[in-house]
Structure formats: structure tokens, C-alpha cells
């Protein structure tokens, strides 16, 4: 256990103690799992009839896969939108023009402090009633709320990526005769983007998770289909577990890719890569927030 700062390398006696505690711990896990499964079985939740719906091709073809397709479609649109939004406002915040800088700062800080759900509920009514878009208005509400929130987070990622580059990069750019803007565009932002890639992928996990909030405004995504399908059959519990499993598999894969990328990229360029942790739903905000285990939006943090 040399990985831990808290513990010494164990000697023979400590190793024996650890082994004993380990066996006890394993027994506790088994007991816990058995308690959950037995408890569910006692309530009649482990009957095959409750679960076999999710082994049928029809369930997947008619409900879960179309739902998943909608989830992925909304997430993909939101990802593209937030990267564009993030690029525009991230570069805007790096501008030396006080007006552009100020406007972009206010927009980014505002959208990071407002709950995503509040935006989804607002856009749902705003798009359907005020803009009178009738087709797919729920999906567009989810996409626009996700773009505004996650776009602001991406803007902060880009800004902190540029700030974390060594000062020499910009100085070298200016020394060879580039203007401030050219140096930003040609030298700094490309390196910042590479360094921020893992954190960006971590943000995709947030987008995918937050797309499930569309359930509240009846956007027909995966969770919504899982719920409507299972309600008449009385196996909502089982449906929620299956839907959660689908989300976990996709998000876990994305997180793993982010971790591998951050390891690979750390040898490339001069920007510091940050591990892309799966951040929170409607993740952290605030004036000088730092993503948990993730990127630092402000450079001067301890």
C-alpha cells in the first residue's frame, strides 16, 4: 500500500491483521448483498416475471432504445453547442477589451450559478409558448439549458487552460511578431484545448447525466420511456435499475477514456492535463469554483 500517505508499508503482523480484517470485510459485503436481495425477494421483487420484460427484444426495440437514441441525440447536440458556446465566451473572457471581457464574465458566472433544472423548466415554456415552436420543444428546452450551463463551464475550462500555460508561450508568440490575438489563436488555445481534453470529456458525462432531467418536462428520453413502460406492469423499481445501469455503463466508459487520455496527454505539450472526473449534476459554480478533482477554472488557486 505504498500509494497511501497515511499508512506505512505493513510488516508481517500488520499484513496478518489486514488479511483478517479483509476476510471480515468481504463477509460483510456478502452479507449486505444477501440482505438486499433477500429483502427484495421477500417483497416479491426478485420474481422472474418482474425482470424478464427487460430480456425481451420488444421492450428494447419499442421503448428503451428509442429513449436512449433521444438521450444521445440531445446530449450530442448539447455537447456541440456547449463547446461552441465555451469557445466564444472563453476567448471573450481572455479579451483585453474591458467591455467584451465584462459581458462574457457576467454571462458565464450567471449561467454557472443558476440550477440547470430551473433553466430547463423555463426554456420548456419559453420555447413552446413565447417562441411557439411546437415540434420537439421539450428536447430543445433540454438542449438549450444544457448548452448555457455546460458552455459556461467549458468557457472556464478554456480560460484556465490558457492561464495554466507557461508565460513563455505567449512571450515567444509576441517575440516572433504575432499580435496578442494571433498568439492566442495560433499558439495558446490549441495547447490549452489539448490540455483540457480530459476535463472536457468529464463534462460530457455531466451533460449525459443532466439530460435525464428532461424527464420532468416529459422529454421522451431513456428515463421517461423506462418509467412509462414499467408503470402499467408494476416493475418501476426494476426499470429504474436497468435504466441506471445503461447510464452507468456509458458514463463509466467516458470517465475511463478521460483518465487514459489525461495520462497519455500529460507527456504532450506544455499545458498541465487535469483528470476529467465525472463532475456533479449541474456541477459546481460560484465565483471561483474549482471542479472536484477536475479542472481549476482560476489559475491562482492553492
Amino acid at each position, binding site marked *: 500500500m505504498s500509494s497511501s500517505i497515511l499508512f506505512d508499508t505493513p510488516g508481517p503482523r500488520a499484513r496478518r491483521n489486514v488479511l483478517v*480484517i*479483509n476476510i471480515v470485510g468481504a463477509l460483510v459485503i456478502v452479507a449486505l448483498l444477501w440482505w438486499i436481495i433477500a429483502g427484495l425477494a421477500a417483497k416479491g421483487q426478485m420474481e422472474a416475471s418482474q425482470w424478464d420484460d427487460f430480456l425481451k427484444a420488444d421492450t428494447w426495440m419499442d421503448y428503451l432504445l428509442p429513449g436512449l437514441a433521444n438521450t444521445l441525440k440531445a446530449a450530442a447536440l448539447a455537447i456541440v453547442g456547449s463547446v461552441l458556446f465555451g469557445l466564444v465566451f472563453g476567448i471573450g473572457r481572455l479579451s483585453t477589451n474591458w467591455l467584451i471581457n465584462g459581458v462574457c464574465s457576467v454571462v458565464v458566472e450567471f449561467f454557472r450559478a443558476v440550477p440547470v433544472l430551473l433553466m430547463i423548466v423555463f426554456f420548456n415554456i419559453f420555447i413552446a409558448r413565447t417562441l411557439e415552436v411546437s415540434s420537439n420543444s421539450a428536447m430543445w428546452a433540454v438542449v438549450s439549458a444544457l448548452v448555457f450551463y455546460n458552455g459556461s463551464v467549458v468557457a472556464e475550462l478554456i480560460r484556465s487552460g490558457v492561464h495554466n500555460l507557461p508565460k513563455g508561450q505567449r512571450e515567444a508568440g509576441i517575440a516572433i511578431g504575432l499580435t496578442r490575438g494571433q498568439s492566442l489563436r495560433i499558439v495558446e488555445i490549441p495547447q490549452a484545448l489539448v490540455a483540457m481534453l480530459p476535463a472536457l470529456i468529464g463534462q460530457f458525462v455531466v451533460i449525459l447525466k443532466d439530460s435525464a432531467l428532461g424527464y420532468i418536462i416529459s422529454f421522451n428520453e431513456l428515463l421517461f420511456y423506462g418509467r412509462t413502460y414499467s408503470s402499467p406492469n408494476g416493475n418501476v423499481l426494476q426499470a429504474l435499475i436497468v435504466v441506471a445501469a445503461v447510464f452507468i455503463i456509458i458514463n463509466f466508459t467516458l470517465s475511463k477514456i478521460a483518465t487514459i487520455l489525461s495520462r497519455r496527454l500529460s507527456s504532450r505539450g506544455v499545458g498541465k492535463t487535469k483528470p476529467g472526473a465525472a463532475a456533479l449534476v449541474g456541477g459546481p459554480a460560484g465565483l471561483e469554483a474549482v471542479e472536484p478533482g477536475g479542472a481549476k477554472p482560476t489559475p491562482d488557486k492553492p
Partner: protein
Amino acid sequence: MDNYLSIFTEYNIPGALWVNIQLTFFAAIGALVLGTILAMLRISPVASFAAIGTSYVNIIRNTPLTIIILFGVLALNGQLGLNLGGGFQENFFRLAIMGLAIYHAAFVCEAIRSGVNTVPLGQAEAARAIGLAFMPAARMVILPQAFRGAIVPLGNVLIALIKNSTVAAVGSVSIEASSVMKDMLDVRADIVIPIFLTFAAGFVIIVIPVGLLTTWLSKKLAVSR
């Protein structure tokens, strides 16, 4: 203008935000307790304990909060008959707190762990070199530095929790901000944008002091290295 101001007399907007603060308060306590236990499991040298902590974090962190809260209401309460007491509303309120605490505990665990990771290995070696045993070294040298390193990430979890408390709307808590805003938007389609901006401003006012406080605390308590 009068048209807009009437929403304050017709609806109790501060009251709705107060519900979110209450949800946040109780869920934060639950998440802190559960998250600290998980962090202890994850950093322990016992492989099976660490496995419990790691699987909890990996499963919960990758699940949408919407599903976790919905699970409390539809599966635990609806299908299994779990009742946390109190009246009808009170039960949903407590279930929502439970869901929020379970979800954010995974992030609290990671925040505390990242705090431990900020302590350089040399500190532990120095503590051993001056003859401190395991417990004194942990108590006097490593944990005080670890907690200081965890302030910023913990503050971020708290800010996220404040915003995520609106997701309690999925769990049939109909008196919190996003549900009240939805009711208002349904009725007052003429002033959709002012209503949204009012609620958004409410959250900005709650969130920004917390952000400033954690920044101030982390600077004040920073370990200079």
C-alpha cells in the same frame, strides 16, 4: 411593473427558496457523514473496504441524480412501501433529502480524498522520522493539512448541492423553487422571462456568498508549501 410585482404577493418566492435551503442543509449533513465514512473506507489499506468505497463512488457518481431521487419515491416508497414518517409532504421531503445525501456523498468522498492527496509524502516521512506513531502522525501532521486541502472541493460540492436541491421536484416535493416557478410560468405566460430571472437571481444570491466564503476560507487556511 405592477404586473410583475404582483407575483411577489401572489406567490411566496422566498418561502420556496427557503425549502431549497432546508433541503440543502439536511442533505449536506447526511452527505458529509456518509462521504467521510466512504473516504475512510477508500483510503484504508484493507482491500475489501476500499472496494466498497470505490464501487459506491463509481456507481453513484455515474448515475443521474434524477434517477436516484425517482428511485426513492417510486421504488422505495411506491413499490417497497418504505415510509420515512411525517405527513404526506413530509415523507417526500425526507426521501428527497435521502436521495440528495446519497448522491452527494460520493462527491464528498472524492473531495476529502483529494484533500488527503494534497499532503506531500515527505510530511508522513518527517512525522515518522521524529518518532510519531501512526495515530499521532495522522492526528497532528497529516489530517489537519488534509482537511485544509479539502475546503475548496467541499465548498464546490455544497454549491452543487444547493443547485441540485431543485431536482427534489422529481421526488414530488412541490413546494421548492423549481416547482413553484413552473406553476407561476404556467399561469403568467405574459412575464415568463422576469419570473425566470427572479428565481435565477435568488440562486445567484445564495450561491455567490458560499463561493466567496470557501475561497476566503481556503486562502486563510492554506498550507504554504
